[in-house]
């Protein structure tokens, strides 16, 4: 009986604890509307501006999400050091979504509960789509540094969504045009990694190629299994199909495996891929076999002074080179804070309007956003690996 009493005690205290926790949360929620009314009161407000940062910060895709966190932190620290925006400090709420749709909805509702004004993120298109519905109803702006799925902007379903990266179809278009016009290739093998990003891109490339006519044909269209131990069967199939070039949609781990095995099997046709491959890790991993590989990527802005400064800050703060989408994340934060500054408020409509009308100097150049939410002034160009580094082809 004594044991049972202890158990009961534990249960009761657990219940109390949980209630206490949620009560705390409730208090927070109760405070929040008060803050909002204050925020609406003009100018004099000193309440912090709350910005959410969401993306994959753990798990196997963490390396795509963490650079954006660093970027936002760096820029926001700088803004706060210089007195904030109109005297208001910027406060960050950093939440992980592991790039999974079901976790992303939790992340989104958490950020909504925290009453953030806007969100920089999410990283993966799938997670972004799942989260956007919640943000849309709550009237929160979302600026993604890396979600490239065309539907996000082109469907018109998500007026609260903007991005500082060009959509997939623009990239596929560039790959196809480059291959046909510059390399004069007629027969293509289109491969993808069966993923959200890679397959979407490959589908576009395939449909663009098929629409070209003029003897251009897709002789092979296949998905490879990401993480498989060996791709030689697919590589043999490429060899047999008589393709004159490979267009690959996906990320660098699979790309480097395929390229390496192709070259080892004496299949020396051009390999054209996307910005998931335009990553220095690809060159490190594929080594000598990376030479000559084409990849599209955001227009080179590494000579842009803001870009140089951002990268230098990152090196000073973390003793390492920034990772994927760092610049896009940095630009997204700059554009967002600039818009809040120009709008003199955190009101959804005002900020949304400012984002679409004001131009801002960012590491990506002078950018603004169009009605659909795609960035104006952000484009792709073609790169090639030459002597162990990506070189932009003009």
């Amino acid at each position: 009986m004594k044991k049972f009493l202890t158990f009961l005690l534990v249960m009761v205290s657990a219940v109390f604890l949980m209630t206490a926790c949620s009560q705390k949360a409730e208090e927070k929620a109760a405070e929040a509307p008060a803050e909002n009314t204050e925020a609406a009161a003009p100018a004099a407000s000193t309440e912090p501006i709350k910005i959410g940062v969401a993306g994959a910060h753990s798990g196997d895709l963490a390396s795509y999400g963490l650079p954006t966190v660093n970027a936002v932190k760096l820029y926001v620290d700088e803004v706060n050091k210089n007195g904030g925006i109109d005297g208001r400090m910027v406060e960050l709420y950093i939440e992980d979504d592991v790039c999974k749709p079901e976790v992303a909805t939790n992340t989104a509702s958490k950020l909504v509960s925290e009453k953030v004004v806007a969100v920089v993120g999410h990283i993966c298109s799938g997670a972004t789509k799942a989260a956007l519905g919640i943000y849309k109803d709550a009237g929160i702006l979302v600026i993604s540094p890396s979600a490239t799925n065309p539907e996000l902007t082109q469907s018109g379903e998500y007026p609260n969504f903007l991005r500082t990266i060009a959509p997939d179809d623009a990239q596929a278009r560039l790959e196809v045009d480059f291959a046909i016009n510059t390399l004069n290739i007629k027969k293509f093998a289109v491969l993808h990694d069966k993923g959200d990003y890679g397959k979407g891109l490959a589908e576009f490339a395939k449909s663009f190629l098929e629409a070209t006519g003029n003897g251009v044909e897709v002789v092979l269209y296949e998905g490879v299994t990401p993480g498989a131990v060996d791709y030689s069967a697919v590589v043999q199939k490429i060899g047999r199909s008589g393709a004159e070039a490979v267009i690959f949609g996906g990320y660098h781990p699979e790309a480097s495996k395929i390229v390496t095995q192709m070259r080892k099997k004496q299949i020396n046709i051009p390999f054209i891929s996307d910005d998931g491959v335009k990553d220095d890790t690809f060159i490190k991993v594929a080594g000598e076999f990376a030479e000559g590989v084409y990849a599209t990527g955001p227009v080179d802005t590494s000579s842009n002074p803001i870009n140089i400064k951002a990268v230098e800050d990152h090196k000073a703060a973390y003793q390492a080179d920034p990772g994927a989408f760092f610049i896009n994340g940095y630009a997204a934060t700059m554009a967002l804070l600039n818009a809040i500054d120009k709008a003199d408020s955190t009101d959804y409509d005002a900020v949304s309007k400012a984002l679409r009308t004001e131009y801002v100097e960012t590491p990506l150049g002078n950018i603004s956003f169009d009605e659909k939410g795609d960035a104006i002034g952000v484009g792709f160009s073609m790169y090639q690996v030459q002597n162990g580094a990506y070189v932009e082809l003009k």
Partner: protein
Amino acid sequence: MLNELKKSLITAVWFMFLTFPIMVIKVNTVYNTIVWRWHNLIYIGVGAFFGSMIWRWLHYKKTHISERNIRERLKNGLQNAIVDNKKVLYTLIAVAVAFTFAFPHMSNAYQINIMTTALMYVVLGLGLNIVVGLAGLLDLGYVAFYAVGAYSYALLNHHFGLGFWAVLPIGGALAMMFGIILGFPVLRLRGDYLAIVTLGFGEIIRLVLENWNAFSFGPSGISGIDRPSFFGLTLNLSQSMTALYYLVLGFAVITIFCVNRLQNSRIGRAWLALREDEIACQAMGIDKTKTKLTAFALGATWAGFMGVVFAAKTTFVNPASFTFLESAIILAIVVLGGMGSILGVILAALILILLPEYLRAFSELRMLIFGGSMVLMMVFRPQGLISNVRRKYLFDKMNFGGEKTNEAK
């Protein structure tokens, strides 16, 4: 005492050796530099030293208690006390019910959202509990039925605009059909062969969804799925979240009721008999095929229902949500909770789903803690949080209790 210290010291040295290359050396293969992180070695050493002491203490406690007090515990262990003592049981239930019903009114949207997810996993756990806990069929591909439910709502909503309530029974029925389709060929298989075939089946479903673009829109998934409607009311986001919470809560209650009734029904007893001894079960005149198929079909139906709810909740589905890890987590809920025990499954689902959410503060470490606690939990409480009470028998003759009851879990 000295001996204990020596043992811990050896453990500490062993772990320092074990973790040396991975924890201490970090090589930058590009610049060909090595970073030596000696401080990690010290942490590991100290951690392992004290860890091993705690480990042995827990182990001692476990074996000690289970040898001496097992009879006593069986007689008036806490679970028995709860179940036997109706008064306490009802009070507890009343508290729990009051809490769950009042929950949305004393918390914010985020809390409601994760609680809804946790309740969904309660239902999934109870569904899988029918297959694994009651009928003893190890199913590693349970998530396939979840996917069937989710995609039936997503597709029917996308193409024909069917609403949540119309699809709910359809999703359940489709999942049940898949359960039977899978059930037939694998009836002959036992134990681990069954496990791998169900795992394969789960993967096949996911791969088909991933590759068959024309049917399922491939990996980019289906977005803009309608949230459930309630009596034609127009709800804003937080209201519809609350409504969804009550919906899932209702589901969980119905499921608990159903599974509880099933357990004590004719078919439920047949499942238990099947789990304990297939041959004896057959000899008693139980139709093995029918019994197994019902288990599969019923388990799948719950997953189908929850799949529909899942699609309605996230308003977006893609194949990435239905990986093997998901099956493993649902299975972990069943086993951690205590196979066949309803209360255990509920507790385990709440812990396993809410823990990672509340561990967000340690976002980097949370999966590490999650994996580690799964191991520890199993080592120190292999029968699960709350082992199934129904099946404990006490023999009056002495010396029968010890080992026998230990095995009869």
